[in-house]
Structures are given as structure tokens and as C-alpha cells.
């Protein structure tokens, strides 16, 4: 029996619509559940007070601080390294075996699962270098983990800068480095920023690599040698050990809001930069 192509077309359209609604619906439902279940437990007190009784009561202030510190510190290390590598690959060399090897290294780093970063950070920073479970061990581990993201997004952004802008800069007597810093990087900034924001997002939502390098102490981290519990780790422990579902949902909501805010800030900065001169 031969089916009429028009009928098939109609059928498929319906099927696709259904699946699209299903997929988007599941994802929207996830966000909704977190908002609805989390909102009643979130208050200023929850954000700014310390946890009591392992998090069964009280707030998550130390976890917020630990998360922010981890995110920002890993950026302090990863941004110059990542953007520098991207500049090197795009501006300072021609394609060669050397750049291919470096790209291979970056790709490989990108493919390594986070638990392997956790294993490595645990054996190398925590044990071999004697840093213990600390903010520093966590930061360095996350730095390596997010490095490929920053390199790749920055490289894309730098490659997209029109070559004639570089020629103009050179023709005005700029050196290579002056051209890179005053023309290329400002033009590539929106893309670079996206990469940076993606990386903060990864640092904020990572659990496996953080728990084995930064530990899970609930105290407020005050030095790089202190252990700390990021929001994602705190959420994991609350939820998994059934300490408090309410606090878990509350933490999840703050976590998702943080990621939302990071995204919004990224879009805002990007749009502002793009809008300013075009």
C-alpha cells in the first residue's frame, strides 16, 4: 500500500510538534518545579544566615560565598591563560604541527569527564602538593577544567574579527601586541565574555570535581587554604542524605537563579557592547 505523501507530511508535522512540545515541556517543568517548591523556603534570612544542624536549619550563606569565590578565583586563573592561548593560536602563529598539537591538547582536555578532574585534583593538589581540601585545590582543578571552554570560545571570537581592522592598526604604527590589545580583543570581547560566563556557570554547577578537591566543610571559607562547600555540593548532600528537602529545594532555586543571573549579565554586557558601536 502506498501512502499519500501529503498524509505522511501531516502526520509527521503532528508528531514533530508533539515531540517538540514534550521536550520543551519537560525542561520547562523542571524549572517550574524548582521555582514552586523552592520559593517558599527562600528568604533574605536563608541567603544571609549560617546553616545549623548540618543544613537542616538556617541558611546557606557560607555556601554562597564558597560558590562565588570558586567561580571568580578560577576565572582569575583561567581567563589570562585561556585568552592568552587563544591569542597565541590565532595571532602569533600560522597553522603548523605545533598548533595542531596544542589544539589536540585543548580538545582532549575538553573531553575529559569532570570526575577525572576530581580524581586528578584529589591526588595532585590535595595529596601530592599538600594543599588539602581547600579553596585553592578546588580553584586550580576548576581552572583546568574550564580552560578549554575559554580557549575555544575566545578563539572563535578572535577569528571572527575582520582582518582589515588589524591592517588598519598596523598601518597606524601599532605593534602586534598593541593591535591585539587595542583592536582585536575589544572587538572579540562579546565572544570572550560568553566563554567566561559559560565557565563561571560550569564552576557554579560542578559537583564531582569540587567535592573531592574543595571538600565539604560548612564553615565560611576565609583563606585559600580553607575548605568550603559550594551550593551545588551542599544541594547534593542535602538531597542525597535526606537532611532537608525544603532546604534542598531552596538551595536549588538559589543555584538556578545564580545561573540565570550569570546568563542575563552575559547577555546584557554582550548586547551593550555590540549595540554601542554598530
Amino acid at each position, binding site marked *: 500500500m502506498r501512502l499519500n505523501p501529503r498524509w505522511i*507530511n501531516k502526520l509527521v508535522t503532528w508528531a514533530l510538534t508533539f515531540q517538540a512540545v514534550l521536550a520543551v515541556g519537560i525542561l520547562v517543568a523542571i524549572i517550574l518545579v524548582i521555582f514552586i517548591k523552592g520559593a517558599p523556603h527562600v528568604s533574605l534570612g536563608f541567603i544571609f544566615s549560617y546553616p545549623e544542624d548540618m543544613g537542616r536549619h538556617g541558611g546557606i550563606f557560607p555556601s554562597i560565598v564558597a560558590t562565588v569565590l570558586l567561580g571568580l578565583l578560577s576565572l582569575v586563573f583561567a581567563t589570562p591563560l585561556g585568552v592568552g592561548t587563544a591569542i597565541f593560536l590565532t595571532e602569533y602563529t600560522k597553522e603548523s604541527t605545533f598548533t595542531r598539537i596544542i589544539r589536540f591538547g585543548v580538545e582532549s582536555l575538553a573531553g575529559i569527564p569532570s570526575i577525572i578532574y*576530581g580524581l586528578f585534583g584529589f591526588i595532585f593538589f590535595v595529596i601530592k602538593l599538600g594543599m588539602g581540601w581547600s579553596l585553592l585545590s578546588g580553584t586550580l582543578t576548576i581552572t583546568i577544567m574550564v580552560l578549554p571552554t575559554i580557549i575555544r570560545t575566545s578563539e572563535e571570537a578572535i577569528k571572527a574579527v575582520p582582518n582589515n581592522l588589524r591592517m588598519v592598526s598596523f598601518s597606524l604604527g601599532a605593534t602586534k601586541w598593541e593591535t591585539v590589545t587595542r583592536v582585536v580583543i575589544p572587538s572579540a570581547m562579546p565572544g570572550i565574555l560568553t566563554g567566561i560566563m559559560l565557565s563561571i556557570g560550569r564552576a557554579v554547577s560542578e559537583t564531582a570535581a569540587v567535592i573531592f578537591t574543595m571538600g565539604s566543610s560548612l564553615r565560611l571559607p576565609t583563606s585559600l587554604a580553607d575548605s568550603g562547600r559550594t551550593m551545588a555540593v551542599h544541594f547534593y548532600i542535602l538531597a542525597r542524605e535526606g537532611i532537608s528537602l525544603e532546604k534542598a529545594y531552596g538551595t536549588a532555586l538559589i543555584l538556578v537563579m545564580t545561573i540565570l543571573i550569570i546568563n542575563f549579565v552575559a547577555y546584557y554586557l554582550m548586547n551593550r557592547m555590540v549595540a554601542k558601536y554598530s
Partner: protein
Amino acid sequence: MGKPHSSRETGIKWLLTLFALSSLLFLFVIFAFILAEGLPLFVKVGPGHIIFGMKWAPTKGHFGIFPMIVSSFMVTFGALVFGASLALACATYLSEYAGRKTKLFLKPALELLAGIPSVVYGFLGVVYIVPLIREYLGGPGFSILSTSLVLGIMILPTIISISFDALMSVPAGYREGSLAMGATKWQTVYRVVLPAARSGILASFILGMGRAIGETMAVIMVAGNALKIPTSLLDPLRTLTSNIALELAYATGDHRSALFSTGVVLLVIIMFLNLVANFWVKKRTAR
């Protein structure tokens, strides 16, 4: 004027070269330390007893991780079965059928969803999926089925976003040409658009697969972590990643080495997948 400039430029070039080399250095150090911790046990008990060993009791001298290797592949495959088809359908709908506004709104929304921590997916899996499976299908609920579902949902945003990009980059002329020859919309999509976007779609699947096989915490939460090779969809299981995370905190001596050996096997599998993926995608795009 000339000299100070050129010496500064040379300095900068060296510094940037060093930065670029740091990625290689990190890769090397990661491999070196994982291998240094993991390989001695391979030598001590023999690679066959680890890779093909069926019994995992590291405090009692059994280091077999074969069930976990099988389980890792099973849930990854399961995640693709759920996630890939749904995501591709969704991406196809959004690029070919949806309106401009939906598309504009969609991209950032998907990026946001891709940023939701995996533990949140795992937790919701425990709260909503596991009890449903236990209640209506039997078994403990912690199972291949629940793990595959959670991972499948988790990789949706990644796959949708990348395959959507691939579909959108198919030139409009292709579609117009096909429609002009009297093909229906679906025939156009199926015979023209999807094949043209093939390599991008494939890349999105591979990335999704990488995320699924590498996921740890969400899997620990919903998989049940039993050591047996699962024989039904409702059996609990333990993957390579969760094996490491479950026991790393406690392990000492050979037990810890065994976890690093698990890491070595995981690394080898991931590297192999990446190589195949790279080769495949490059070959396809080259044609």
C-alpha cells in the same frame, strides 16, 4: 624607539607560547598522575582481571570492573535512545516549522537549561521518576530505566542547541529548490535538510554521549549502584564514573589504586570515543 618595542614583543610572544603550552602541560600532568596511580595495579593483578573481572570487592582483593564498563555503555545508549530522538525532533521542529520569535527566544533559554547543574536533574529523578517506576513497573526504581531517562533529559538542551545550529545553517536555497520541485515539507526536511546538516547533528549526538558517559553525581543518585551487570531495564547498576565517586573518599592502598584504574579505563574509553568522533565528523564534513 624600535628596540624596546621589539624586545617587549618577543617577551610577550614567549609568554603567550607558555600559556598555550600550559594546556598540553595540564593534559600531560593529568594523564601522568592518573596513570601513575592506576597502572601499577594493572601490573600487579593483571589487566584481564581488572577489565574483564566480574567481581568488585577491592578491600578483599577483587578489582573487576567489567560490569561497570558494560553498565556505562548501557546507560549511555539508553540516554541516546531517549534523548537523541526527542532532541532531534525538537530541533527539527524549531528550525523548520516554528516561527521567528520562538527561535529568537529559544537559543538563550536552551543555553540556560544546559547550565542547570546535573545534580538537580538527578535529584528530580529521585523524587519523580524513581518512585513512579517502582510503583508501576516494579523493582527498586533505581534502575537503567530511571538513569537513562534522567541522562536523556539532561542531554536534551545540548543536543537540541547544537543540531538546531546545524539545521539553521543549511542554506535556504536547498529548501526552496526542493519545495519548488513539488516535494512536501516533510520530504524536503527528510531528503534534503537533514542529510545536509548530518555532520552537525552527529556532532551533537557525540557531545551528548560524552556528557552522558561522563556524568557522575546524577547517576549515583538514580542508578542504585549495585555491582551486578543489570539483566533487566528495572535492575540497578553502577557506572565507571559513579564507582570512582562512591568510594574515593574512603579508599586507601590498593583500593584507591583500583579507583584510579577505573579512571584509566574511563579515560581510554573517552579518548577512543573522541578519536572516532573526530575522525567520523571530519570525514563527513570533508565530503
